[in-house]
């Protein structure tokens, strides 16, 4: 009953959101430049991503925000096959001996729109809601979320309960391919039509001829969080999140090498992933002021029913250097264990497994970030920021499951990414 009343208030407060108040208009515009290179000196993906965020803020707990994001991706991306001492022919390109095969035609643009708002319900509670839409040439997504926030104990404690739903459609260039079929059998690629969904499921999903063509993936999310003011200087936040994904989750562009007893490739087949995934996270954030500075410590434990588990640590220290300048060094480490069905290759003499992927992102690896932000507050209405980060991913270059020729080649060349972001934000 209480919840019903609050939802009613939520609707009313949204409808009256535009009533005249002394509102601030805030803006935040940033441009990310991102590039990758592996330890074999192969350039990979480059990204340019401008973001514009406009917020109408009526009060600390009362705002409406609109955000538009544009991604432009170009470059080369690993297709899943492993390096070999012989040249490898992938129809559209040939990989050099000794190098991780990279598909040179990785190219896409993405536009995303997000609308979020936070509205008070009464003196101790408020709700946050959002709608999102994004579109790429081969992927579309629409999503919504709603969270209720309730203060307790003279606002020293805030409980957050939220949920979200997203509906995504995958519609790959070149159509879908049956899992574990050879890439050389390209004469009859399975195109995304309503008739072909069942035979080429690759792990579930429904076909629709609509605004969302392709195979469908749905995500149901929930979160429970608690924030606590420990004292005048320190905040603690703990979140538990759970999400259930159902539908098509295979990467339609990834394949796996099929090797002979000598470790040489004899074929390449399309990968297959399960059509459900249950993800869970526990994240704690600790923020404390140290004089005019502040320390931010985050720890997240992630696990899912694909067998992936990850420990992620994130440290930021906000140095305040006078009233205008600040510097925020950043360190992050994420240590990931592989998915149960991750394989560097399939063996020619063995039957196909139920699921298999050689996507390195599902393998054992560490991701380390060093970086920092510098910010300059020109005045109370204008601030400039620059953020630089170097991200390194390392994995097992010579895993025990490698055989024959695979042992002579790097199965996981280190990756190095650089990201550079310039931003300007303020109000008018």
């Amino acid at each position, binding site marked *: 009953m209480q919840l019903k009343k609050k939802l009613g208030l939520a609707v009313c407060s949204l409808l009256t959101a535009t009533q005249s108040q002394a509102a601030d208009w805030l803006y*935040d515009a940033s441009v990310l430049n991102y590039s990758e290179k592996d330890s074999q000196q192969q350039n990979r993906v480059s990204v340019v991503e401008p973001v514009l965020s406009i917020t109408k803020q009526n009060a600390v707990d009362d705002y409406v925000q609109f955000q538009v994001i544009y991604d432009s991706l170009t470059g080369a991306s690993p297709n899943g096959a492993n390096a070999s001492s012989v040249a490898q022919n992938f129809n559209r390109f040939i990989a050099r001996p000794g190098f991780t095969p990279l598909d040179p035609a990785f190219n896409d643009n993405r536009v995303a729109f997000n609308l979020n708002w936070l509205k008070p319900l009464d003196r101790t509670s408020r709700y946050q809601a959002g709608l999102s839409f994004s579109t790429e040439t081969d*992927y579309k997504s629409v999503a919504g*979320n709603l969270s209720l926030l309730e203060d307790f104990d003279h606002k020293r404690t805030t409980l957050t309960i939220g949920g979200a739903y997203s509906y995504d459609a995958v519609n790959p260039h070149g159509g879908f391919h049956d899992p574990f079929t050879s890439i050389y059998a390209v004469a009859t690629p399975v195109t995304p039509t309503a008739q072909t969904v069942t035979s080429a499921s690759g792990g579930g999903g429904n076909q629709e001829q609509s605004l969302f063509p392709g195979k469908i993936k749905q995500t149901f999310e929930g979160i429970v969080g608690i924030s606590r003011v420990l*004292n005048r200087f320190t905040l603690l936040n703990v979140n538990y999140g759970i999400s259930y994904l159902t539908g098509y989750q295979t990467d339609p562009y990834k394949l796996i090498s099929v090797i002979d007893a000598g470790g040489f490739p004899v074929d390449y087949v399309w990968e297959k992933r399960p059509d459900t995934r249950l993800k869970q996270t526990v994240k704690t954030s600790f923020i404390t002021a140290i004089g005019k500075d502040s320390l931010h410590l985050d720890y997240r434990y992630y696990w899912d029913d694909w067998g992936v588990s*990850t420990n992620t640590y994130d440290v930021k220290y906000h140095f305040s250097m006078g009233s205008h300048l600040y510097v925020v060094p950043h360190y992050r*480490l*994420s240590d990931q264990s592989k998915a149960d069905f991750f394989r560097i290759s399939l063996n020619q003499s063995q039957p196909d497994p139920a699921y298999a992927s050689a996507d390195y992102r*599902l393998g054992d690896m560490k*991701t380390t970030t060093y970086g920092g932000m510098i910010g300059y507050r020109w005045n109370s209405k204008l601030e400039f920021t620059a953020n630089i980060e170097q991200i390194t991913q390392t994995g097992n270059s010579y895993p025990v499951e490698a055989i024959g020729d695979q042992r002579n080649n790097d199965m996981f060349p280190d990756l190095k990414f650089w990201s550079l972001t310039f931003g300007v934000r303020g109000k008018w």
Partner: protein
Amino acid sequence: MKKYFRKTLSWLLMVIAGIGIAGCSHLQPQAVKPWQRGVLARADMALTPNPVQQGLDEHIYFSKEAASGGSGVGGGGCGCN
């Protein structure tokens, strides 16, 4: 599993050490009156002081790692992973 437990334990110890540097008094629970929240209201004390940069970072990690989430619900989908 044991490996992860060891790593987690070592990192927890480091985090605790970091908190120690910050000063034990900062962990001592105290009643905080509304007029004592000046420090907590500072922009750098927000859970996410720079949400746009945070969003860009999370997008990178989402596209390059198997794990994601933990900070909240929602946001748009992406075909990058």
